[in-house]
């Protein structure tokens, strides 16, 4: 059985990468992909904890499934909005979408 810590470290790394992606990427779609990365880290976490700590394993795995489902819905929705943005501004660059400020 792979020790729990390895999973946690991996998920932390994934999470950190996701955060870095959101902070640095200019294109909305790539930002979305980074968020997906973070959500995958979360699912990994849940599965790892379910495997090691939880005797009946159900909660963790159900949670992971739900996260995946919600992530999918979120991406669907976000991409729809990004397409709308693309229609209006012919670019998905997040920096250009900054007319609302101060």
């Amino acid at each position, binding site marked *: 059985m792979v020790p729990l810590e390895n999973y946690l470290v991996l998920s932390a790394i994934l999470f950190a990468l996701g*955060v870095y992606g*959101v*902070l*640095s*990427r*200019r294109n*909305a779609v790539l*930002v979305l992909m980074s968020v997906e990365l973070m959500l995958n880290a979360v699912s990994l976490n849940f599965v790892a904890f379910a495997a090691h700590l939880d005797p009946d394993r159900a909660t963790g795995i159900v949670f992971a499934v739900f996260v995946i489902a919600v992530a999918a819905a979120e991406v669907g929705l976000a991409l729809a909005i990004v397409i709308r943005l693309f229609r209006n501004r012919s670019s998905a660059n*997040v*920096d250009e*979408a*900054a*007319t*609302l*400020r*101060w």
Partner: protein
Amino acid sequence: MAEHAWILAAVPAIAFLALAALGRRLPRQGDFLAVLAAASGFGLFFAVLASFLGRGEGAWPVLNAIEWTAIGDFRLNMGIAVDQITIVMLAVVTTVAFMVNVFSVGYMKGEPRYWWYFAVLQLFVASMLLLVLADNLLLLYVAWELVGLSSFLLIGHYWERRSAVEAAKKAFITTRVGDVGLLIGIILLWKATGTFNILDIIHAVEAGEVGGTGLFVSVMFIFLGAMGKSAQLPFHVWLPDAMEGPTPVSALIHAATMVVAGVYLVARLLPVFEAAGDALLVVTAVGLITALFSGVVAFAQTDIKKVLAYSTVSQLGFMFVALGAGVVSAGMFHLFTHAFFKALLFLGAGSVILGAHHRQEVGQLGGLWRRMPVTAAAFLVGSLALAGLFPLAGFWSKDEILHAVEGHRGALVFALISLASIMTAFYTTRLFILTFLGKPRDAEAGHARETGASMTGPLVFLAVLSVFAGFVVYGGVGEALGFPGGFGEFVYLHHPETFHIDWGLAGVSTALFVIGVFGAGWLYRGGRLDRAAALTAWQPKLYEMTRRKFYFDDLYQFLIDRVVLGFSYVVSWFDRFAVNDTGVDGSATLTGYAGFLLKHLQTGRVPNYALAIAAGVAALILVALAAGG
């Protein structure tokens, strides 16, 4: 009747209200009402005098008080107290008021706001009588302020003239500064003795409950008030300017009654002054300096009323010297006689001014002896009384003062007071010669006419008084009038003194009179100014200084403009810029600026927002660690 002496004050007060309310619509604008009030006041005085004397010495002073207010154990009773000093003052005020009212009817005919003049005159008389009758310092202070108010209104009667308004303002503010001292003194005395009642304070002081520097400080504050009202140096500046008011006003207020309020106050509280260290020395010094200073300044004045004004200031100095010597009878006696002949001189000057078609400058008068014989004769009697000729009133009161000073003060004070009386004789003679003798220096003065009976009447009456008032000092005359004896036996501090003429002293004072009169007679003989001009040419700087009243007015004007108003500009500038713009508005703009800076963090770009969230999480963890640990 003595315990209801407050009626004396109530009658003029009611007259004031009547005149103020419907004066304009009354026939002759209500001047008859004023004269009636003054006359009834004069009559009522004798009733009060009779009832007072009837009670006999044991029952003095006659008291009558009501409870005014009470907060916790702070009780305040207001009422009247009639004793010997009060009787003297009542005599002076009612008599002179009556004469001035009668004189004013003629003098003020045709003047603007004729009814208002009489209304305020009654207000003045009422508040002066209240001042004299008050049994406690608080009521005295109330009357003191009302007297100041009526003087302000009367000086500023011709308020169309800028100079009259400025003079009224100057008078009110200068006396007001003095009143500040008086109020502080009154409250300090209250703090020490626990009461405002004058008699209780005197008993407490005499019983020794109060003393030391505390008493001295409070007495000095009270003397400050007296100096303000009685125009002693350095508060004297307002009295000469107060001549802007109508002349009868000068006669009543700035000669006989108001200005002596300070002397009355010191006389009333003399036992307290005695107990307060060397307070009396201070009183003597101030009186002496003022007498000498104003005597010198009177030499160089050319306006009749200004000369008389400075003469009043000087005579008040004499009274304070007498009180300073601890002899209340001398002070009060001089006050008594001075009121009559000074009122006479002022009314005489008024008659001259009216007769010579409003000429006041001595340079424009001269040779009025033939044109206005009655006024001239009355004026002569007044002048001689002031100068101190033997049988006249002025001689006896000045003799009493010399006697008091000789007895209680050293030779130096005696010498200086003698010099002052020489000066008095000198400027009185100078004034009389320049006004009545010699040739008329101006066409208008050439055909001046004698004034009407309603004005010469009071002059004659006062002239008679100026001649015979002096004899009251004799025991025999006193008893004849029902008094327990001469003036000394009636008004005294600790024990009555019977009067007996001291021929040596009488000789000295007559000598002083002669020196003064003939000195002036020689300098201005026959009304010619050539010798006087030569004298001024010899010492031009000194003459200019005396003529400009030793630059006191300019000094005060400088002080006010530079120091007081300057400081006020600084304060209002400070309030505008420091407290308001930087302090209040400053903090407002600061908050706004903070908002402005924060605003720029909101760049509108998603990565910045995400960064804020990430940084937020980190910060929260740090805060939780720092606090939670």
